Protein backbone atom coordinates (compact mmCIF):
# COMPACT_ATOMS: atom_id res chain seq x y z
CA UNK A 1 0.00 0.00 0.00
CA UNK A 2 2.80 2.43 0.73
CA UNK A 3 4.34 1.98 -2.68
CA UNK A 4 0.95 2.53 -4.25
CA UNK A 5 0.52 5.80 -2.41
CA UNK A 6 3.90 7.15 -3.47
CA UNK A 7 3.14 6.21 -7.04
CA UNK A 8 -0.17 7.97 -6.99
CA UNK A 9 1.42 11.10 -5.67
CA UNK A 10 3.92 11.67 -8.44
CA UNK A 11 1.87 14.80 -8.72
CA UNK A 12 4.32 17.48 -9.69
CA UNK A 13 5.54 16.72 -13.24
CA UNK A 14 2.40 16.03 -15.19
CA UNK A 15 4.57 14.77 -18.00
CA UNK A 16 5.16 11.59 -16.02
CA UNK A 17 1.54 10.61 -16.59
CA UNK A 18 1.50 8.51 -19.78
CA UNK A 19 -1.94 9.72 -20.81
CA UNK A 20 -0.79 13.24 -21.48
CA UNK A 21 2.26 12.24 -23.47
CA UNK A 22 0.49 12.95 -26.74
CA UNK A 23 0.72 16.67 -26.08
CA UNK A 24 4.48 16.69 -25.81
CA UNK A 25 7.40 16.14 -28.12
CA UNK A 26 9.16 12.83 -28.53
CA UNK A 27 11.33 11.64 -25.69
CA UNK A 28 9.98 14.08 -23.12
CA UNK A 29 8.20 11.29 -21.26
CA UNK A 30 11.37 9.28 -20.88
CA UNK A 31 13.51 12.29 -20.11
CA UNK A 32 11.37 13.68 -17.33
CA UNK A 33 10.48 10.44 -15.53
CA UNK A 34 11.39 10.51 -11.86
CA UNK A 35 12.52 7.15 -10.47
CA UNK A 36 13.43 7.63 -6.84
CA UNK A 37 12.90 11.11 -5.48
CA UNK A 38 15.92 12.24 -3.47
CA UNK A 39 13.78 13.28 -0.52
CA UNK A 40 11.13 10.77 0.59
CA UNK A 41 7.57 12.01 0.43
CA UNK A 42 6.22 13.22 3.72
CA UNK A 43 4.23 10.53 5.49
CA UNK A 44 2.47 10.59 8.82
CA UNK A 45 2.12 7.58 11.11
CA UNK A 46 4.20 5.62 8.60
CA UNK A 47 1.16 4.82 6.50
CA UNK A 48 -0.73 7.91 5.37
CA UNK A 49 0.84 10.48 3.07
CA UNK A 50 0.82 14.12 4.03
CA UNK A 51 -1.36 15.01 1.03
CA UNK A 52 -4.33 13.34 2.67
CA UNK A 53 -4.05 15.66 5.65
CA UNK A 54 -3.64 18.68 3.39
CA UNK A 55 -6.66 17.53 1.39
CA UNK A 56 -8.87 17.46 4.48
CA UNK A 57 -7.43 20.62 6.09
CA UNK A 58 -9.72 23.24 4.50
CA UNK A 59 -12.89 21.49 5.61
CA UNK A 60 -11.98 19.95 8.96
CA UNK A 61 -8.82 21.63 10.19
CA UNK A 62 -5.95 19.85 11.91
CA UNK A 63 -7.88 17.20 13.86
CA UNK A 64 -10.03 16.10 10.93
CA UNK A 65 -8.10 13.07 9.72
CA UNK A 66 -7.45 11.83 13.22
CA UNK A 67 -11.13 11.97 14.12
CA UNK A 68 -11.93 10.18 10.89
CA UNK A 69 -9.41 7.44 11.72
CA UNK A 70 -10.65 6.97 15.26
CA UNK A 71 -14.23 6.88 14.07
CA UNK A 72 -13.50 4.26 11.48
CA UNK A 73 -11.68 2.06 14.00
CA UNK A 74 -14.43 2.33 16.62
CA UNK A 75 -17.09 1.72 14.01
CA UNK A 76 -15.41 -1.45 12.73
CA UNK A 77 -14.94 -2.66 16.30
CA UNK A 78 -18.44 -1.99 17.46
CA UNK A 79 -20.10 -3.49 14.43
CA UNK A 80 -17.76 -6.45 14.64
CA UNK A 81 -16.48 -5.80 11.16
CA UNK A 82 -13.09 -6.34 12.74
CA UNK A 83 -13.33 -9.09 15.36
CA UNK A 84 -11.08 -8.90 18.37
CA UNK A 85 -9.16 -12.11 18.55
CA UNK A 86 -6.05 -13.39 20.31
CA UNK A 87 -4.25 -12.40 17.14
CA UNK A 88 -5.08 -8.78 17.93
CA UNK A 89 -3.03 -8.78 21.07
CA UNK A 90 -0.12 -10.59 19.53
CA UNK A 91 -0.36 -8.10 16.64
CA UNK A 92 -0.25 -5.20 19.06
CA UNK A 93 2.76 -6.61 20.86
CA UNK A 94 4.69 -7.53 17.69
CA UNK A 95 3.98 -4.30 15.84
CA UNK A 96 4.56 -2.23 18.96
CA UNK A 97 7.90 -3.92 19.54
CA UNK A 98 8.94 -3.40 15.92
CA UNK A 99 8.01 0.29 15.95
CA UNK A 100 9.91 0.81 19.18
CA UNK A 101 13.05 -0.90 17.92
CA UNK A 102 12.97 0.91 14.58
CA UNK A 103 12.44 4.31 16.14
CA UNK A 104 15.22 3.77 18.62
CA UNK A 105 17.89 2.09 16.51
CA UNK A 106 16.88 2.93 12.98
CA UNK A 107 19.12 5.93 12.43
CA UNK A 108 22.21 4.29 13.88
CA UNK A 109 21.76 1.19 11.74
CA UNK A 110 21.40 3.42 8.68
CA UNK A 111 24.60 5.22 9.57
CA UNK A 112 26.34 1.90 10.02
CA UNK A 113 25.27 0.81 6.56
CA UNK A 114 26.47 4.13 5.14
CA UNK A 115 29.80 3.61 6.90
CA UNK A 116 30.16 0.18 5.29
CA UNK A 117 29.63 1.70 1.88
CA UNK A 118 32.04 4.49 2.75
CA UNK A 119 34.71 1.92 3.56
CA UNK A 120 34.24 0.23 0.23
CA UNK A 121 34.48 3.52 -1.63
CA UNK A 122 37.58 4.60 0.28
CA UNK A 123 39.30 1.30 -0.51
CA UNK A 124 38.69 1.72 -4.19
CA UNK A 125 39.62 5.40 -4.01
CA UNK A 126 42.86 4.41 -2.30
CA UNK A 127 43.72 2.05 -5.12
CA UNK A 128 42.93 4.74 -7.63
CA UNK A 129 45.16 7.27 -5.87
CA UNK A 130 48.06 4.83 -5.64
CA UNK A 131 47.74 4.05 -9.31
CA UNK A 132 47.60 7.73 -10.24
CA UNK A 133 50.65 8.44 -8.10
CA UNK A 134 52.60 5.64 -9.72
CA UNK A 135 51.81 6.88 -13.18
CA UNK A 136 52.69 10.43 -12.13
CA UNK A 137 56.07 9.21 -10.87
CA UNK A 138 56.72 7.49 -14.16
CA UNK A 139 55.79 10.66 -16.04
CA UNK A 140 58.13 12.75 -13.93
CA UNK A 141 60.98 10.34 -14.41
CA UNK A 142 60.34 10.34 -18.14
CA UNK A 143 60.43 14.14 -18.18
CA UNK A 144 63.69 14.27 -16.27
CA UNK A 145 65.18 11.75 -18.66
CA UNK A 146 64.15 13.92 -21.58
CA UNK A 147 65.70 16.96 -19.94
CA UNK A 148 68.92 15.01 -19.47
CA UNK A 149 68.90 14.14 -23.13
CA UNK A 150 68.62 17.82 -24.00
CA UNK A 151 71.53 18.66 -21.79
CA UNK A 152 73.59 15.88 -23.33
CA UNK A 153 73.39 17.79 -26.59
CA UNK A 154 75.33 20.61 -24.96
CA UNK A 155 77.90 18.15 -23.69
CA UNK A 156 78.49 16.87 -27.18
CA UNK A 157 78.92 20.41 -28.49
CA UNK A 158 81.60 21.14 -25.93
CA UNK A 159 83.42 17.91 -26.72
CA UNK A 160 83.26 18.62 -30.46
CA UNK A 161 84.66 22.09 -30.13
CA UNK A 162 87.38 20.74 -27.84
CA UNK A 163 88.46 18.17 -30.39
CA UNK A 164 88.37 20.73 -33.17
CA UNK A 165 90.57 22.95 -31.09
CA UNK A 166 93.01 20.08 -30.58
CA UNK A 167 93.19 19.48 -34.33
CA UNK A 168 93.66 23.17 -34.92
CA UNK A 169 96.71 23.15 -32.68
CA UNK A 170 98.31 20.44 -34.79
CA UNK A 171 97.53 22.30 -38.01
CA UNK A 172 98.88 25.44 -36.45
CA UNK A 173 102.12 23.67 -35.62
CA UNK A 174 102.48 22.48 -39.18
CA UNK A 175 101.79 25.87 -40.60
CA UNK A 176 104.14 27.43 -38.06
CA UNK A 177 106.96 25.13 -39.20
CA UNK A 178 106.48 26.10 -42.80
CA UNK A 179 106.47 29.75 -41.87
CA UNK A 180 109.69 29.40 -39.89
CA UNK A 181 111.35 27.57 -42.79
CA UNK A 182 110.38 30.40 -45.12
CA UNK A 183 111.74 32.91 -42.66
CA UNK A 184 115.06 31.09 -42.53
CA UNK A 185 115.35 31.04 -46.26
CA UNK A 186 114.71 34.73 -46.37
CA UNK A 187 117.38 35.35 -43.73
CA UNK A 188 119.92 33.37 -45.73
CA UNK A 189 119.15 35.41 -48.80
CA UNK A 190 119.55 38.58 -46.80
CA UNK A 191 122.95 37.37 -45.53
CA UNK A 192 124.20 36.50 -49.02
CA UNK A 193 123.12 39.86 -50.37
CA UNK A 194 124.83 41.62 -47.46
CA UNK A 195 128.08 39.69 -48.09
CA UNK A 196 128.11 40.45 -51.78
CA UNK A 197 127.54 44.13 -51.09
CA UNK A 198 130.30 44.59 -48.58
CA UNK A 199 133.13 42.65 -50.21
CA UNK A 200 134.95 45.11 -52.74
CA UNK A 201 137.21 44.21 -55.77
CA UNK A 202 140.49 45.09 -53.95
CA UNK A 203 139.92 42.70 -51.25
CA UNK A 204 139.02 40.14 -53.84
CA UNK A 205 142.49 40.46 -55.52
CA UNK A 206 144.35 40.21 -52.22
CA UNK A 207 142.50 37.20 -51.20
CA UNK A 208 143.08 35.57 -54.62
CA UNK A 209 146.91 36.22 -54.45
CA UNK A 210 147.05 34.77 -50.98
CA UNK A 211 145.21 31.77 -52.16
CA UNK A 212 147.69 31.30 -55.13
CA UNK A 213 150.66 31.49 -52.73
CA UNK A 214 149.04 28.87 -50.53
CA UNK A 215 148.43 26.67 -53.51
CA UNK A 216 152.13 26.98 -54.62
CA UNK A 217 153.34 25.90 -51.24
CA UNK A 218 151.02 22.98 -51.42
CA UNK A 219 152.30 22.10 -54.93
CA UNK A 220 155.99 22.12 -53.68
CA UNK A 221 155.05 19.85 -50.86
CA UNK A 222 153.27 17.61 -53.31
CA UNK A 223 156.32 17.53 -55.77
CA UNK A 224 158.58 16.32 -53.01
CA UNK A 225 156.56 13.22 -52.78
CA UNK A 226 156.62 10.77 -55.69
CA UNK A 227 153.69 11.01 -58.01
CA UNK A 228 151.58 7.98 -58.01
Amino acid sequence: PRAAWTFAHHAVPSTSCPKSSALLGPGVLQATRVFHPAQPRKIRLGLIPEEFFQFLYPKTGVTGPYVLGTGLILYSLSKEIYVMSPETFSTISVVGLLVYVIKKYGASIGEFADKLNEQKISQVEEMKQVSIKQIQDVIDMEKSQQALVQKRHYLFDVQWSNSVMALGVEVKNCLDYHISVQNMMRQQEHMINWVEKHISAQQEKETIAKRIADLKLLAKKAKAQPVL
Partner: protein
Amino acid sequence: MNENLFASFITPTIVGIPIVILIIAIPSILFPSPTRLITSRLTSLQQWLIQLVLKQLMMMHSIKGRTWSLMLISLILFIGSTNLLGLLPHSFTPTTQLSMNLGMAIPLWAAAVITGFRHKTKMSLAHLLPQGTPVPLIPMLVIIETISLFIQPMALAVRLTANITAGHLLMHLIGGATLVLTSISPATASITFIILILLTILEFAVALIQAYVFTLLVSLYLHDNT
Protein backbone atom coordinates in the same frame (compact mmCIF):
# COMPACT_ATOMS: atom_id res chain seq x y z
CA MET B 1 -10.42 -17.98 19.42
CA ASN B 2 -10.96 -19.17 15.88
CA GLU B 3 -12.36 -22.56 14.97
CA ASN B 4 -9.69 -24.31 16.90
CA LEU B 5 -6.32 -23.52 18.28
CA PHE B 6 -4.48 -24.90 15.31
CA ALA B 7 -6.32 -22.94 12.67
CA SER B 8 -3.30 -20.82 11.90
CA PHE B 9 -1.25 -23.88 11.07
CA ILE B 10 -3.26 -25.33 8.22
CA THR B 11 -1.61 -24.92 4.84
CA PRO B 12 -3.27 -21.91 3.26
CA THR B 13 -5.44 -22.34 0.22
CA ILE B 14 -7.30 -19.72 -1.75
CA VAL B 15 -10.51 -21.16 -3.16
CA GLY B 16 -8.91 -24.56 -3.19
CA ILE B 17 -5.61 -23.55 -4.78
CA PRO B 18 -2.73 -24.24 -2.46
CA ILE B 19 -0.58 -21.12 -2.36
CA VAL B 20 1.88 -22.50 0.14
CA ILE B 21 4.60 -22.68 -2.51
CA LEU B 22 4.18 -18.99 -3.16
CA ILE B 23 4.41 -18.35 0.54
CA ILE B 24 7.64 -20.32 0.75
CA ALA B 25 9.07 -18.29 -2.13
CA ILE B 26 8.15 -14.88 -0.72
CA PRO B 27 11.01 -14.38 1.81
CA SER B 28 13.52 -14.41 -1.04
CA ILE B 29 12.16 -11.00 -2.09
CA LEU B 30 13.69 -9.56 1.05
CA PHE B 31 17.21 -10.45 -0.07
CA PRO B 32 18.05 -8.42 -3.18
CA SER B 33 21.13 -9.60 -4.98
CA PRO B 34 23.77 -6.89 -5.21
CA THR B 35 24.25 -5.59 -8.74
CA ARG B 36 26.91 -2.98 -8.10
CA LEU B 37 29.76 -2.22 -5.76
CA ILE B 38 28.03 0.49 -3.75
CA THR B 39 24.60 -0.89 -2.93
CA SER B 40 21.60 0.26 -1.00
CA ARG B 41 21.61 0.20 2.81
CA LEU B 42 19.64 -3.02 2.97
CA THR B 43 21.94 -4.88 0.63
CA SER B 44 25.12 -3.68 2.26
CA LEU B 45 23.81 -4.63 5.72
CA GLN B 46 22.89 -8.08 4.44
CA GLN B 47 26.28 -8.48 2.82
CA TRP B 48 28.01 -7.59 6.05
CA LEU B 49 25.84 -9.96 8.09
CA ILE B 50 26.31 -12.82 5.66
CA GLN B 51 30.07 -12.33 5.70
CA LEU B 52 30.10 -12.38 9.48
CA VAL B 53 27.99 -15.53 9.74
CA LEU B 54 29.80 -17.31 6.96
CA LYS B 55 33.16 -16.72 8.55
CA GLN B 56 31.97 -18.09 11.89
CA LEU B 57 30.30 -21.08 10.33
CA MET B 58 32.93 -22.16 7.87
CA MET B 59 36.09 -21.57 9.81
CA MET B 60 36.30 -25.07 11.20
CA HIS B 61 35.80 -26.94 7.97
CA SER B 62 38.33 -28.31 5.55
CA ILE B 63 38.37 -27.34 1.89
CA LYS B 64 35.99 -30.14 1.08
CA GLY B 65 33.59 -29.07 3.79
CA ARG B 66 33.65 -25.47 2.57
CA THR B 67 32.02 -26.50 -0.69
CA TRP B 68 28.85 -26.62 1.38
CA SER B 69 29.03 -22.88 2.20
CA LEU B 70 26.33 -21.81 -0.23
CA MET B 71 23.97 -24.50 1.00
CA LEU B 72 24.42 -23.67 4.65
CA ILE B 73 24.15 -19.92 4.22
CA SER B 74 20.98 -20.18 2.18
CA LEU B 75 19.64 -22.57 4.81
CA ILE B 76 20.20 -20.18 7.67
CA LEU B 77 18.80 -17.25 5.69
CA PHE B 78 15.71 -19.19 4.69
CA ILE B 79 14.91 -20.50 8.14
CA GLY B 80 15.65 -17.16 9.79
CA SER B 81 13.52 -15.13 7.40
CA THR B 82 10.56 -17.52 7.38
CA ASN B 83 10.56 -17.67 11.17
CA LEU B 84 10.73 -13.90 11.53
CA LEU B 85 8.01 -13.31 8.95
CA GLY B 86 5.81 -15.80 10.75
CA LEU B 87 5.68 -13.52 13.74
CA LEU B 88 3.58 -11.00 11.82
CA PRO B 89 -0.14 -11.25 12.46
CA HIS B 90 -2.18 -13.71 10.46
CA SER B 91 0.81 -15.04 8.59
CA PHE B 92 1.69 -18.60 7.81
CA THR B 93 5.06 -20.04 8.77
CA PRO B 94 6.19 -22.87 6.54
CA THR B 95 8.60 -24.15 9.17
CA THR B 96 5.73 -25.12 11.42
CA GLN B 97 4.96 -27.98 9.05
CA LEU B 98 6.82 -31.15 9.93
CA SER B 99 6.74 -32.22 6.31
CA MET B 100 8.85 -29.30 5.25
CA ASN B 101 11.34 -29.63 8.05
CA LEU B 102 11.81 -33.30 7.36
CA GLY B 103 12.28 -32.38 3.73
CA MET B 104 15.09 -30.08 4.77
CA ALA B 105 16.70 -32.23 7.44
CA ILE B 106 16.80 -35.70 5.92
CA PRO B 107 18.55 -34.89 2.62
CA LEU B 108 21.16 -32.69 4.31
CA TRP B 109 21.92 -35.23 7.01
CA ALA B 110 21.99 -38.08 4.54
CA ALA B 111 24.32 -36.16 2.24
CA ALA B 112 26.75 -35.53 5.09
CA VAL B 113 26.73 -39.16 6.27
CA ILE B 114 26.99 -40.68 2.82
CA THR B 115 29.88 -38.37 1.92
CA GLY B 116 31.63 -39.55 5.03
CA PHE B 117 31.04 -43.19 4.27
CA ARG B 118 32.14 -42.87 0.68
CA HIS B 119 35.38 -41.02 1.16
CA LYS B 120 36.49 -41.87 4.64
CA THR B 121 34.80 -45.16 5.41
CA LYS B 122 37.04 -46.13 8.28
CA MET B 123 36.77 -42.79 10.03
CA SER B 124 32.97 -42.68 9.68
CA LEU B 125 32.65 -46.11 11.15
CA ALA B 126 35.10 -45.18 13.87
CA HIS B 127 32.77 -42.37 14.93
CA LEU B 128 30.32 -45.01 16.03
CA LEU B 129 32.48 -45.85 19.01
CA PRO B 130 33.64 -43.22 21.47
CA GLN B 131 37.25 -43.38 22.54
CA GLY B 132 38.27 -45.16 25.64
CA THR B 133 35.31 -47.46 26.20
CA PRO B 134 35.91 -50.62 28.19
CA VAL B 135 35.90 -53.71 25.96
CA PRO B 136 32.78 -55.52 27.30
CA LEU B 137 30.62 -52.48 26.58
CA ILE B 138 31.59 -52.23 22.92
CA PRO B 139 28.69 -54.11 21.24
CA MET B 140 26.04 -52.26 23.19
CA LEU B 141 27.70 -48.93 22.59
CA VAL B 142 27.92 -49.49 18.85
CA ILE B 143 24.20 -50.18 18.75
CA ILE B 144 23.48 -47.07 20.81
CA GLU B 145 25.66 -44.90 18.62
CA THR B 146 24.01 -46.23 15.46
CA ILE B 147 20.60 -45.42 16.86
CA SER B 148 21.73 -41.94 17.78
CA LEU B 149 23.11 -41.50 14.28
CA PHE B 150 19.78 -42.40 12.70
CA ILE B 151 17.87 -40.20 15.08
CA GLN B 152 19.78 -37.08 14.02
CA PRO B 153 17.56 -36.08 11.06
CA MET B 154 14.41 -36.73 13.06
CA ALA B 155 15.74 -34.62 15.89
CA LEU B 156 16.64 -31.78 13.53
CA ALA B 157 13.20 -31.67 11.94
CA VAL B 158 11.17 -32.17 15.09
CA ARG B 159 13.23 -29.65 17.04
CA LEU B 160 12.55 -26.88 14.55
CA THR B 161 8.88 -27.74 14.12
CA ALA B 162 8.19 -28.05 17.82
CA ASN B 163 9.93 -24.84 18.80
CA ILE B 164 8.25 -22.63 16.24
CA THR B 165 4.84 -24.22 16.62
CA ALA B 166 5.00 -24.01 20.39
CA GLY B 167 5.98 -20.37 20.23
CA HIS B 168 3.10 -19.46 17.93
CA LEU B 169 0.64 -21.44 20.02
CA LEU B 170 1.78 -19.81 23.24
CA MET B 171 1.40 -16.32 21.75
CA HIS B 172 -2.06 -17.25 20.55
CA LEU B 173 -3.08 -18.63 23.95
CA ILE B 174 -1.78 -15.74 25.98
CA GLY B 175 -3.40 -13.32 23.53
CA GLY B 176 -6.65 -15.16 24.06
CA ALA B 177 -6.21 -14.95 27.80
CA THR B 178 -5.63 -11.21 27.59
CA LEU B 179 -8.73 -10.87 25.45
CA VAL B 180 -10.92 -12.68 27.91
CA LEU B 181 -9.43 -10.97 30.94
CA THR B 182 -10.02 -7.47 29.54
CA SER B 183 -13.70 -7.68 30.30
CA ILE B 184 -13.17 -9.34 33.71
CA SER B 185 -10.37 -7.31 35.27
CA PRO B 186 -8.22 -4.95 33.19
CA ALA B 187 -5.35 -5.05 35.69
CA THR B 188 -4.79 -8.78 35.21
CA ALA B 189 -5.18 -8.21 31.52
CA SER B 190 -2.37 -5.71 31.49
CA ILE B 191 -0.12 -8.14 33.36
CA THR B 192 -0.91 -10.78 30.81
CA PHE B 193 -0.19 -8.28 28.10
CA ILE B 194 3.20 -7.63 29.56
CA ILE B 195 3.83 -11.36 29.57
CA LEU B 196 2.84 -11.35 25.93
CA ILE B 197 5.36 -8.65 25.13
CA LEU B 198 8.11 -10.58 26.84
CA LEU B 199 7.11 -13.66 24.97
CA THR B 200 7.28 -11.76 21.70
CA ILE B 201 10.83 -10.75 22.44
CA LEU B 202 11.59 -14.39 23.13
CA GLU B 203 9.97 -15.41 19.88
CA PHE B 204 12.15 -13.04 17.90
CA ALA B 205 15.17 -14.54 19.52
CA VAL B 206 13.94 -18.08 19.05
CA ALA B 207 13.30 -17.49 15.39
CA LEU B 208 16.89 -16.57 14.82
CA ILE B 209 18.35 -19.10 17.21
CA GLN B 210 16.53 -22.01 15.68
CA ALA B 211 17.87 -21.12 12.29
CA TYR B 212 21.33 -20.95 13.70
CA VAL B 213 21.05 -24.23 15.56
CA PHE B 214 19.77 -26.08 12.56
CA THR B 215 22.55 -24.86 10.38
CA LEU B 216 25.16 -25.40 13.02
CA LEU B 217 24.20 -28.98 13.52
CA VAL B 218 24.23 -29.71 9.84
CA SER B 219 27.65 -28.19 9.62
CA LEU B 220 28.72 -30.30 12.57
CA TYR B 221 27.60 -33.47 10.88
CA LEU B 222 29.47 -32.29 7.84
CA HIS B 223 32.61 -31.71 9.81
CA ASP B 224 32.50 -35.19 11.21
CA ASN B 225 32.30 -36.64 7.79
CA THR B 226 34.79 -34.69 5.68
